[in-house]
């Protein structure tokens, strides 16, 4: 009986096992544990007015800003988070106070805020959103609509505890 550990057969088997284990680690889908925080976008904070009031809707409505707020890492939905929204709309410029408003997320981390129709300004039809309440790190977003005729814009936040 041989006591040699490093036979050709053992080496091949061990090497194969290591390779399979390594590959399978790469092939497993990204787990919720790894959910990366949303980064602020360039120009996201332009014309921001801190402390926009929580409103049922901004102006006359007709356009829906929707989205979700989740926690970085495990992806748990975050309830009661204040999301501030502003844009150049049919009722006002980005800088105008009446173009700004805020809403809170529900138990599923979902927010929906009705506002006037966003129209192209500074070359693109775009909105601005902010999470800036302190508990998590501040995030400013500036999503661009795929078409100026869209009547909704969906935006997702993944927040990192501050």
């Amino acid at each position: 009986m041989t006591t040699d550990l490093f036979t050709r057969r053992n080496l091949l088997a061990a090497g194969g096992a290591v390779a399979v284990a390594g590959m399978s680690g790469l092939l497993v889908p990204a787990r919720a544990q790894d959910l990366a925080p949303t980064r602020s976008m360039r120009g996201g904070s332009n014309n921001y007015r801190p402390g926009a009031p929580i409103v049922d809707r901004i102006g006359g409505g007709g356009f829906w800003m929707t989205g979700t707020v989740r926690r970085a890492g495990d992806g748990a939905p975050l309830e009661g988070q204040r999301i501030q929204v502003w844009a150049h709309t049919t009722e006002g410029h980005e800088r105008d106070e009446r173009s700004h408003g805020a809403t809170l997320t529900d138990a599923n981390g979902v927010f929906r805020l009705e506002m006037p129709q966003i129209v192209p300004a500074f070359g693109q039809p775009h909105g601005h959103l902010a999470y800036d309440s302190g508990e998590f790190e501040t995030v400013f977003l500036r999503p661009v609509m795929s078409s100026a005729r869209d009547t909704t814009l969906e935006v997702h936040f993944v927040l990192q505890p501050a």
Partner: protein
Amino acid sequence: MGRTRAILIWGVLAAVLLIPVAAAAASPLLQWRQPVYIAAGFAGIIAMALLLVQPLLAGGYLPGLARQRGRRLHRWVGGVLVLAVIVHVAGLWITSPPDVIDALLFRSPTPFSVWGVIAMWAVFAAALLAAIRRRLQLRPRTWRLAHTSLVLVIVAGSVIHALLIEGTMETVTKVALCGLVLAAFLKAFADLKVWTSRHRRDA
């Protein structure tokens, strides 16, 4: 050149310059913009229209404005072009200061603003080069090459800037004006033989 032909050329040029402006004046976006923002937009459109006039003057293509008279008007129109660019940027600044500061610092999220700012600096540089031409004492060929190189940056930058923007300009007239600006520049560039010395040009 016949009188009829002259009238025809001026008529076509007037139409080519005015139709994009008229089409932009009918833009639905205007109803949601303040006067200073509207003025800034039209200053940009007028600047683009002047970019079409400049090579036509430099090349002496317009009836009654051959060579020296065309060149003299080219300088004046260049001055108006600089003013139009300043009004364009200043009006946008008043409308939304952070967006214009981002653009000027090349950190804007919108790709067209980079091209616009590059074209703006090239306009200022080309005009400055013309203003201090005598003091520079460059050889004519060197000066011409420098001025034309800046104009190439202006034309390319402005056309890309305009095409990428979703604004008050109507799409068909915008693309047509951009195409004509490019064509007029290339025509004058080829005819004036910018890259050769004077005696070879006149030969």
